[in-house]
C-alpha cells in the first residue's frame, strides 16, 4: 500500500501538499499531505505538518495535534509543554514559541485552533490514523521540491 508514495519521480506526482494559512501575521501554516488515487478519483489525507516561517516544526499527526492542544490550553499549560512557554508580557499572559521567541496572543491562538478544525472538514481521518505516512528527510525534501515550496 505504501509503495504509492515511494520516492520515485513518476509516482511522486500523485502525492501532493496543500498549504493552509492559519495566521498571516505570525506566519503559521498547516501542510496537508495527500495521496491521490486516480483510479477511484479520490484523495486521502496521509500526514499533517505545521510550518512556521521557513521551518517545519512537526512532521506527523501526533505532534501536530499536541501543538494545537497546547495552543488551546493557553495559560493553563505548564512547563511540560514542548513547543510553548507561558510568559507575562505587558500585564497580559502570552504564549512564547520556544524555537524562535515569537509571542502569540489569545486571539492568535483562537484563530489558529478555529482554522485548524475547519481545515479538516470533509476529510476522513481513518486513512490518516491507520496508515500514516512516515517521512524521512530525503522523501520530504523531494515532495517539497515537486510542490514548488522552495520557490521564492
Amino acid at each position, binding site marked *: 500500500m505504501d509503495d504509492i508514495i515511494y520516492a520515485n519521480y513518476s509516482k511522486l506526482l500523485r502525492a501532493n501538499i496543500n498549504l493552509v494559512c492559519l495566521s498571516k501575521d505570525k506566519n503559521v501554516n498547516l501542510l496537508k499531505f495527500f495521496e491521490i488515487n486516480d483510479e477511484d478519483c479520490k484523495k486521502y489525507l496521509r500526514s499533517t505538518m505545521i510550518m512556521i516561517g*521557513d*521551518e*517545519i516544526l512537526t*512532521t506527523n499527526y501526533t505532534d501536530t495535534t499536541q501543538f494545537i492542544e497546547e495552543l488551546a490550553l493557553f495559560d493553563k499549560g505548564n512547563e511540560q509543554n514542548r513547543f510553548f512557554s507561558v510568559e507575562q508580557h505587558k500585564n497580559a499572559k502570552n504564549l512564547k514559541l520556544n524555537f524562535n521567541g515569537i509571542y502569540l496572543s489569545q486571539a492568535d491562538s483562537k484563530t489558529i485552533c478555529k482554522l485548524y478544525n475547519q481545515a479538516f472538514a470533509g476529510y476522513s481521518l481513518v486513512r490518516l490514523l491507520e496508515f500514516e505516512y512516515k517521512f524521512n*528527510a530525503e522523501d*520530504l525534501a*523531494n515532495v517539497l*521540491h515537486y510542490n514548488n515550496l522552495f520557490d521564492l
Partner: protein
Amino acid sequence: MTYEKPIFELPKISLFDKRIFRTFETRKLYNFVIIKNLKLDEPFHSTFVKFLVAIEDSELWIKSPATKVIKINIRDSQNSFVQSSTFKVIYLLDIIKEAIFELYETIDKSSNRMDYRESTILGIIILLISKTDDIKYFYEKNGVSEQEALEDLAKKLIPVAFVGLTISITKRDNFSYIKQSCNRMLDNMEEYSFVKAEDYIPKTFTLENIKLPQKILVSRNEI
C-alpha cells in the same frame, strides 16, 4: 554487400577506454573536447580525463540562486528530533557540461599560442569548482578573496605547464564575459532537492587519488 576497405588509412591515435566514465554526459564531453577537436597532447589529455572522473565521483553541488532554505525537524528511529536544512541544488557535472558546450565557440581564437584553448577550458572548470559551496566555504573561512581562491586551486590541480597561462587568462576581459554567462546559466539549470544534515562535513577536491588505465591505439576510421 561486401565491406570495402577505405583507400586512405588514417593514422591511429591513442585514447582512453570510455568505460572509465560512468555517465553518458562525460563520454559526450570527452568525445567533443578530445576526439572531435583533437586535443590529444599529453599534459592536457590526462588532466581533463582526471577532472571528469573526479567530478563524477565527488558529486559537488552549487546552491541554486533562487531557493528558500527550509529547516525540517523529523523524528529518527530513537524517537528524538533531528534537524536538517533542505534546499535546491545544481550538480557541478551538469553545469560544466553546459558551460563547455556553450562557451567553446566564444573562446578567443586570435591568440597564436597553441595551448590557449586548453588553458581556457581548464580555467572554466576551475572557476566552476570554486563556486561550489564546499570549496567556497573552505576559502571564506580563511578570508581568501575569489581571485586568490581561483589561483590557489589552479596551482593545486593543474599541471605546471598550464598554470601561468590559466591564471593570466582569468584576469583578462574575455574571461569576465565567461564569468557572467556562467552566472546566467545557473538560473536555467535543472534543480534537485538536497538535504544537509547538522553534522555535514564539507568535501574536498583532489586529483591525486585517481589512477588512469593505459591508453589504447584506435584507428580514426573506427571512430
